[in-house]
């Protein structure tokens, strides 16, 4: 059973009917199978239609969907012999960012990303995927490790943003993010980042200053959450939908702006309805880009990464 979003109500109703009919079929009175198939076709069509034209706000909801595959799901399916590595060696272990070395489709690689957590306990443990400075300093450490052993860096981005807290500020949240970007820009190994859910502002770009930046079809990537933008520019929180639209935070818009390199398609009805498919599609895309990037030597990779960001902003939406 799915957690349905607001705009999925008609689909939820259809699926509810199908469920009822399936129970009726136990009576064996009428041929229910035909009716179920008909309704299923209708539900699929509705799903396809609504997912083909999601608004920016609907995409925001899909991107935050609790059933979407998270960092740990990708690692479980795509990475063999994963050895998670803990701690920033300075202050603490921040479980909002998980990282380590593992084998991705034959490549030894450093793999890291924000983990939002699966249930209440998990969400608290991982601080809802909102990292403190320690998380970003761990990321820096892992990037340096990748550089030292000539391993590619794969980052999966899924965060509403860096954690806004007193301790995080005291320990230099801004510096930790800035340094993460600096180290990313200096890397002489391939770096690929994929936004799998929410790409929230500075907390996202800290691990997304990569040679290739990909986004799942219904993920979002924004300078500020639509709710925050609404309360600042509209002076109240009621214009999140307008803000989402105005911010151009969808994968489709960002692709047009040349900010991302590829959109990874999601299965019908979003990654939350076809977790395995979504994970495999992300894996295939990463593998393809990894093969391309491995052809270049370190200095070229570094230069190309810089050039990519220097060129950004020349292209508009029109």
């Amino acid at each position, binding site marked *: 059973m799915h957690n349905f979003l607001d705009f999925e109500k008609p689909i939820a109703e259809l699926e509810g009917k199908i469920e009822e009919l399936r129970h009726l079929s136990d009576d064996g009175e009428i041929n229910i199978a035909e009716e179920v198939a008909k309704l299923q076709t209708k539900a699929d069509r509705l799903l396809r239609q609504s997912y083909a034209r999601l608004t920016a706000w609907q995409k925001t909801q899909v991107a935050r969907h609790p059933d979407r595959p998270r960092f740990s799901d990708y690692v479980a399916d795509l990475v063999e012999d994963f050895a998670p590595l803990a701690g920033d060696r300075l202050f603490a272990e921040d479980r909002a960012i998980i990282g380590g070395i593992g084998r991705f489709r034959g490549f030894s690689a450093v793999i890291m990303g924000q983990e939002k957590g699966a249930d209440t306990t998990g969400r608290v443990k991982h601080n809802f995927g909102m990292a403190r400075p320690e998380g970003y300093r761990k990321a820096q450490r892992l990037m340096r490790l990748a550089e030292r052993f000539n391993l590619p860096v794969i980052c999966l981005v899924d965060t509403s943003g*860096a*954690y*806004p*807290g*007193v301790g*995080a*500020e*005291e*320990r*230099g*949240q*801004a*510096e930790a*993010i*800035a*340094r993460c*970007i*600096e180290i*990313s*820009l*200096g890397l002489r190994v391939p770096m690929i980042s994929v936004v799998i859910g929410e790409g929230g*502002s*500075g907390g996202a*770009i*800290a691990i997304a*200053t990569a040679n290739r930046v990909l986004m799942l079809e219904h993920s979002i*990537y*924004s*300078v*500020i959450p639509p709710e*925050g*933008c609404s309360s*600042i*520019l*509209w*002076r109240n929180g009621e*214009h999140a939908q*307008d*803000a989402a639209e*105005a*911010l*151009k*935070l969808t994968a489709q818009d*960002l692709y047009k*702006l040349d*900010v991302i390199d590829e959109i990874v398609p999601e299965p019908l009805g979003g990654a939350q309805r076809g977790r395995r498919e979504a994970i495999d599609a992300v894996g295939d895309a990463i593998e393809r880009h990894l093969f391309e990037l491995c052809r270049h030597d370190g200095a070229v990779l570094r230069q190309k990464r*810089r050039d990519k*960001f*220097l060129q*950004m*902003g*020349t292209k*508009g*939406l*029109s």
Partner: protein
Amino acid sequence: MNWISNFVRPKIRALVKKAEVPDNLWHKCPACTQMIFHRELEASLKVCPHCGHHMRVRARQRLQLLFDEGKYTTVELPETQIDPLRFRDRKRYADRLREATATTAEKEAILVAHGRMDGEATVIAAFDFAFMGGSMGLAVGDGLLAAARLAVMQEAPLIVVPSSGGARMQEGILSLMQMPRTVIAVEQVKEAGLPFFVLLTDPTTGGVSASFAMLGDIAIAEPGAVIGFAGQRVIEETIRETLPEGFQRAEYLLEHGMVDMVVHRRDLRETIINLFRLLRDKRPPAAVVQLPQTGTGSKHGDSTGGTSADGTV
């Protein structure tokens, strides 16, 4: 405070109020609410003579305060896309830009200038908070890249003076992309072996603090400046607690090891010049060096102490 500030000034203020002198001759300090006569405020570099509160200064005044004799030349900034997203909230972004240009008489939230400090070529990029809160979009990012190129070309140190609430959200993701872009600017200066200083002024927050502003070889902050990543309201809403006294102020950051020093506005120029000299003139001056005598084959340290025998240096 002396008799004049404690007694005479309030008297004058009372008189002034009665006489209804135009308001703009008197400024009210936002920190201590005392009135300050405009000439006095200019003379004190916009620092409250009563409580030492550092008020924001415009980019042009900042440049004037730092360069030798207050002289500098601004650089024409590269042309960038205007309103790339055709952004509209309650107002069109294009209109907001036009208004900002009209009220500030500046084209953007940054000024890049070259001039001299201590007689040496120096490049300074100063943010103008009056222009849309000093927010960083494409034009500001390109401005910082231009400043870095100029510094490298002139083999000059670069000083950046942020005064910014962060990224300009009306440029959406492209404003976020100025974070890596400005970090590249910093890297270019550092790779050329040149000093990159940041002078953190009120405010330095959000995407500006989390990029170039935290990567200075030396980080100097003005007293009382708000410096941090997350906005205070966002933090309060998240943790549901009131924030500690002085939170995110320059002195608080100094205490937590995030800046090198907090320096009064009147001492900034001298402080920076001293640091530049220390990084530039790395050896003892010729006048005090005792050169080993040539041709004698004497080992190092053999030359006699005191003044050299033949008077050469």
